[in-house]
């Protein structure tokens, strides 16, 4: 167990070192901050609403993540396979499972850092009014969990190919499906031929529904479990794919 944690921490640190050794970190963080700011103030009507909360800030996160998170996740395994370093990594005394978890964690921490760096907006709202900071914290938590879900999908699909562009496009499409699965547009397609319980199940898979309830300040245990399960499922698939694909 200790060995596992030690291995994971070594790989996490190496991954983070790589992010900050390349423009990836800088570009991602800057774009994320600019876009989230622009959405909040222009599309979200942060000032015009005259309500001291961060709802206009959080409501655009799913759409921001839809493109930015696959951009972080696409390189996780595709790059490793393309450059051949996967052979180096997986012949060190580190298991594939440890490597999968570590790479995911590093990327998730990195997205978390970008999220933390949006703190000026939290200060702003506290200066302007008297928001419920519990709801704000719940919003950050929900946003980070949702990013984890997107990231687990992207990491898994990145193991399918050596080509980062292919990994990116696949991830965006699958993430889009998960994002929208609660909307009538998607559900109507299933309603015609699936029993109602399965349609409800699909509706329940939606990131949006779970994220919205957390970001409104309702930290329901089921929503936490939901994101936990989504991440666990995709990382398990990721581990299996890594094992299968390394032979090719």
């Amino acid at each position, binding site marked *: 167990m200790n060995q596992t944690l030690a291995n994971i921490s070594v790989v996490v640190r190496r991954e983070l070192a*790589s992010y900050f050794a390349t423009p990836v970190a800088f570009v991602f963080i800057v774009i994320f901050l600019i876009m989230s700011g622009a959405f909040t103030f222009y599309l979200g009507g942060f000032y015009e609403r005259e309500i001291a909360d961060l709802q206009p800030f959080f409501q655009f996160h799913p759409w921001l993540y839809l493109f930015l998170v696959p951009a972080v996740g696409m390189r996780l395994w595709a790059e490793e396979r393309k450059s*051949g370093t996967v052979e180096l990594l*997986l*012949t060190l*005394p580190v*298991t594939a499972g440890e490597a999968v978890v570590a790479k995911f964690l590093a990327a998730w921490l990195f997205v978390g850092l970008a999220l933390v760096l949006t703190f000026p907006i939290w200060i702003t709202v506290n200066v302007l009014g008297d928001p419920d900071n519990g709801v704000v914290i719940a919003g950050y938590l929900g946003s980070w969990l949702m990013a984890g879900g997107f990231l687990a999908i992207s990491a898994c699909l990145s193991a399918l190919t050596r080509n980062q562009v292919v990994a990116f496009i696949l991830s965006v499409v699958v993430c889009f499906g998960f994002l929208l699965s609660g909307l009538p547009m998607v559900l109507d397609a299933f309603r015609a031929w699936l029993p109602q319980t399965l349609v409800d199940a699909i509706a329940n898979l939606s990131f949006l529904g779970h994220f919205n309830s957390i970001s409104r300040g309702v930290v329901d245990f089921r929503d936490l479990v939901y994101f936990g399960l989504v991440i666990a499922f995709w990382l398990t698939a990721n581990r299996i794919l890594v094992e299968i694909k390394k032979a090719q």
Partner: protein
Amino acid sequence: MIEAKKLTRCYGDFTAVDRLSFRVDSGTVLGFLGPNGAGKSTTMKMLTGFLPPTSGSASIHGHDIVEDSVAARRLIGYLPEGAPLYGELSVARFLEFVAGARGYRGAESGRRVDAAIERLQLDEVRNQTIETLSKGFKRRVGLAQAILSDPPVLVLDEPTDGLDPNQKQQVRRLIRDMSADKIIIISTHILEEVDALCTRAMIIARGRLLADDSPASLLARSRYARAVSLSCDDLPAAASALSELPEASDVEIRRGLVTAFPSGQGDLFDAVSRLTRDRGWQVSRMQLEAGRLDDVFRNITRESSAEEVA
């Protein structure tokens, strides 16, 4: 000890490695020799636990490469084909990562990294980003990461590929220095390297083991082994006189040299020197040939493909 039993790996319908069995003891430098695509790298990938075998098994000092993979990998330092590295990291940072993954912490990690850097003479590029380095330096970083934990088994896939002659010498010296108590497996298609470095050579083609012997015994299989070459003013006359000798089985003229191949009766070199003295030839050069590994290699691999066609 490394033991492989009927190690087999298929990619779809293609059998890359076909029932390879061998045993290697400590103190051996084993050379995998074979044409490109012979299955050398695939065998190494299986021994290092990267690829699971399709069938058969292998163990490293008693640890099965599939069942007990992590323990087996802990005993192996591996330089994969093409020496892949995390190009965006500095040399020192990369080696620190490898030290961490090998379980070294703090001061011990620093000591290991320093020792590996010193051993491969990487000091001047210590803080340089790996992707900006020349091919020779990259290869040495790959070797540094393989020897970092001073493992009892080293698996090096084409360790001197891309190095200049001086660097090749250095790497060979390094391998020789470490070979006393280790098992070192290298793959190469440079035949002189086998001669210079290995205590044992395995010739592999199309995934199958064709020969497993010491380089000296392999050399003895060459038709050039113990042949005598000389150059003199009248080569055709010398050739016909030499072919009369019972000690010679065959004679050929090539590049200003006439070469007599031994028939196995008596000492060919003695017979040839007697002949030159008796005939009073003006001999400018005369030499006893060692075997030629490329000749053995070509014969062995060609025989096997002829069998395949038949």
